[in-house]
């Protein structure tokens, strides 16, 4: 017996793939090249880069097109692609203080160090649906005169430093410099280091993280209560690696990231009521929702991660590929396992029909 028995399955798969390709790639609409997608669906591209853990806009755009706009499926495509790539180098540590801000707001302070820079946001734009009949009139893409920015405006001091100066924050800085936990090489399980939780959140599915954050506020086992956002910023950071021959750090590119600091009021019995605690969030691209949720959950995890379910929830339930993969596997055939379950139901019924089971009077029947 050869391979022929498998033909039916293969034909069905090929036909399904063909249906997708025909509808997606040959739809009667202009082709959407990568630059079209990165330019017009920037936030979707950024989200895929973050959830995939691979910063490359072109790859993300291609994935979004292939996934017909499903960001989770696109993140899966990028991560599976990443599995085929060798790890060329490990970057030098990124110093977020080097971030050149494109946007930066400090809700907790009227006049912080540096600017309150609104930047590119629709925060204050009325959510009114625009339904233009066609493309808008042509307009030059470059702003009239790029404003000159001082160093403070480009790289403002962070709000946390101000709080430290005022001695209003609990200091969690460590003097040792441990290697960060690499979630792409080791499975993160509780109890885990803070870096494992931060990395898991940075790569988490945005909706899952926001839902967990909201659960921590409104859910029955919530841990976050007094939420103040210290600072949120979006900007560019340089990426450096050591040159394989000279050993010197060399700048090989830059990437955009969103950073957030969340302030938590401490009120636990063994906590310093006279100070605040600050949580940290950082993720690829422009994704403020994720960075803010992450910062809040970082503090909550430090305070309650081990005494409640939060650490396990953070580490094990927020990855989109994990949760969606497990959910979707329910579509696979399960008739063997189901048969085994049906058999036990039938066995119980048969036993019941054979006569009522004498509830053993405390083991008396076995004498």
């Amino acid at each position, binding site marked *: 017996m050869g391979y022929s028995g498998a033909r039916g399955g293969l034909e069905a798969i090929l036909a399904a793939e063909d249906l997708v390709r025909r509808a997606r790639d040959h739809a009667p609409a202009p082709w959407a090249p990568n630059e079209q997608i990165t330019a017009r669906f920037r936030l979707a591209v950024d989200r895929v880069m973050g959830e995939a853990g691979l910063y490359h806009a072109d790859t993300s755009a291609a994935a979004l097109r292939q996934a017909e706009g499903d960001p989770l499926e696109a993140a899966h495509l990028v991560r599976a692609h990443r599995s085929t790539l060798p790890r060329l180098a490990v970057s030098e540590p990124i110093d977020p203080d080097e971030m050149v801000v494109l946007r930066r707001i400090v809700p907790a302070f009227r006049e912080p160090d540096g600017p309150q820079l609104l930047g590119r946001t629709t925060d204050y734009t009325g959510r009114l649906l625009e339904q233009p009949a066609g493309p808008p009139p042509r307009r030059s893409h470059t702003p009239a005169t790029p404003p000159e920015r001082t160093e403070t405006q480009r790289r403002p001091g962070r709000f946390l430093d101000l709080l430290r100066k005022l001695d209003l924050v609990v200091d969690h800085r460590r003097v040792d410099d441990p290697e960060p936990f690499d979630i792409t090489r080791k499975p993160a399980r509780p109890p885990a280091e803070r870096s494992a939780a931060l990395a898991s959140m940075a790569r988490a599915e945005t909706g899952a993280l926001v839902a967990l954050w909201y659960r921590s506020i409104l859910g029955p086992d919530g841990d976050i209560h007094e939420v103040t956002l210290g600072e949120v910023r979006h900007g560019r950071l340089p990426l450096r690696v050591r040159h394989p021959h000279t050993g010197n750090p060399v700048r090989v590119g830059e990437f955009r990231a969103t950073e957030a600091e969340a302030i938590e009021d401490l009120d636990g019995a063994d906590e310093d009521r006279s100070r605040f605690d600050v949580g940290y969030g950082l993720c690829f691209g422009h994704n403020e929702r994720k960075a803010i949720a992450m910062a809040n959950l970082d503090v909550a995890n430090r305070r309650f991660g081990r005494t409640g379910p939060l650490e396990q929830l953070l580490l094990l339930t927020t990855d989109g590929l994990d949760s969606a993969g497990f959910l979707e596997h329910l579509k696979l055939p399960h008739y063997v*396992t189901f048969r085994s379950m049906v058999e036990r139901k039938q066995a119980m019924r048969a036993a019941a029909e054979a006569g009522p089971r004498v509830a053993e009077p*405390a083991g008396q029947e076995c004498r």
Partner: protein
Amino acid sequence: MTSTLDTLLTEREKDLHLGILDEGAKREIRRATLTAVCVPGYQVPFGSREMPVARGWGSGGLQVTLGVIGADDTVKVIDQGDDAGVNATNLRRMIAATTGCAGTADTREATIVQTRHRVPEERLREGQVLVLQVPVPEPLRGVEKSVVECARMHAEGDYSAMWVSLYEDLVRNGMITRTTGYPVLVGGRYVLATTPIPRWDVPRLHESEHLSLFGAGREKRIYAIPPHTDVRPLTFDDVPFEVEHAPGARCVLCGSDDVFLVEAGTTGAYACSDTEWCARVREGDADTEAHHARAPLHLLPDPSARLRAPATTTARPGRPRPVLPEGQDWALRVDGLGKVFGPGAADAVPGTGPEHGTAISPATGAIVAAWDVSFDVAPGEALGVIGESGSGKSTVLGCVIGDEQATTGAVRLAALDEGRTDLLTLPGDARRRLRVDSMAVVHQNPAAGLDLRVTAGGNIAERLTAAGWRSYHDIRRRAAELLDRVEVPLTRMDDPVRTFSGGMRQRVQIAKALATEPPVLLLDEPTTGLDASVAAGVLDLLRGLLAERDIAAVVVSHDFAVIEALTDRTLVMQLGRVVERGLTDQLFHDPHHPYTQRLVAAARR
């Protein structure tokens, strides 16, 4: 000009292959697989990569297969026993396309069989590798949701929660109703989830000739059953493990009735789930006789065998009562025990205690909850520790039990190493083990000592199975005997403890504490929180139990009436120190220390 990135790429070019997994990842998977083979049944964590199939669609099995496969291998892939299903087809084409190996449906030709939910009916032989896709690798998840706790249970081989779930199943349903993914004990050490293969396939993993590798991609675990490994489905010695069976069913295609059958159509017909085996039976190309001999027909459900008692009772495991060495008359001995909450340890002690009127250290602000507490208890003797709330008596008990880390001192049990070993130097797992059969505790709150969702019998079964009892009927008999002794009506034996009153719960807790006849019993405010009449009943019971047993008891209470009723000697504690000690009768009638006088006066009021 060459950029830094270009240079890095050239450095690594030798490792670049067209594939779905880079070479570094494959090496890592092989290392994890080797570890798994060396420690059968242990779940080895690995850096699971993202595959072109979703997690849950065989990403773990695929990684294991790609990690161990070579170009001259022949691979067979089945899903539900079927080579032709879409998922099997898809995985096979992916493996073949990226490795260049040959594909087959014939189990006899395959060197690697990747499977979801089945073990082939054909006998797997030496040299063949069975790769099982695992959706949920943790067999304990059904009884414990915390992954930290599950890890502890595996590390300590503490599977009593699993045994209790089987016990409860039998009590409620008269049979074990677990379906697929039946838990097995591998090599007598680790409990393992048999993916979800049917129970029919479980015996094929025992002493097999082939190597079984289990890959869980989503949960990032690899585990293995090497050839010739002992694999036993978890069941009590006197309750048979049952495989699936549909009476009278035969395959509509090949007529076999000694294979795993699945429903064919909706009219009650059945067919082989292993399509390749079925085809070969029809072609006359299968050794059906050898297969029949191998089939688990001796494990077909037999209602008459389910809860039938064995003719003779099996020996009850338990350690012999320790013989006290010459010149040593204590079962439990505590020397110079101290516990400081906060900074300073011994430096925090000066300036605290009854003479200073405080337990808070003037030097460091730490709370000196107990200091320089020493006592011993002989078999058959009961020692009382009395004091107000905050006097340190519960802290002392906590340190003896192991719930608290003592700052200084030593705790010895005659049952352990003839009293030579200081318990405080033992790791957590060793101390937890002592609580199974050497030292039992009755907590003030029954919820601390019982699982309220579990039946009264099941709670006692927890302690007995932890001590190694494996006979369902022996456990039932022992639980009934104990519940009868603590005056819990046997009609309530199979009711969850949460439906019990406070006094009844406390009686169940006492029965559980005595289940393994431990030489030392620690009672922490055993009647506090009960109504006066109920408390009196429990007190009567305890007095009787202590009198009829050769047990060394420590009773902690704020109530002199409890201490007087139960104990022979007493320590009085105030602000972390022992302020008076003596025979209970004498203390009660002639207290010296003013604090003791106050306590006695309070009891007489």
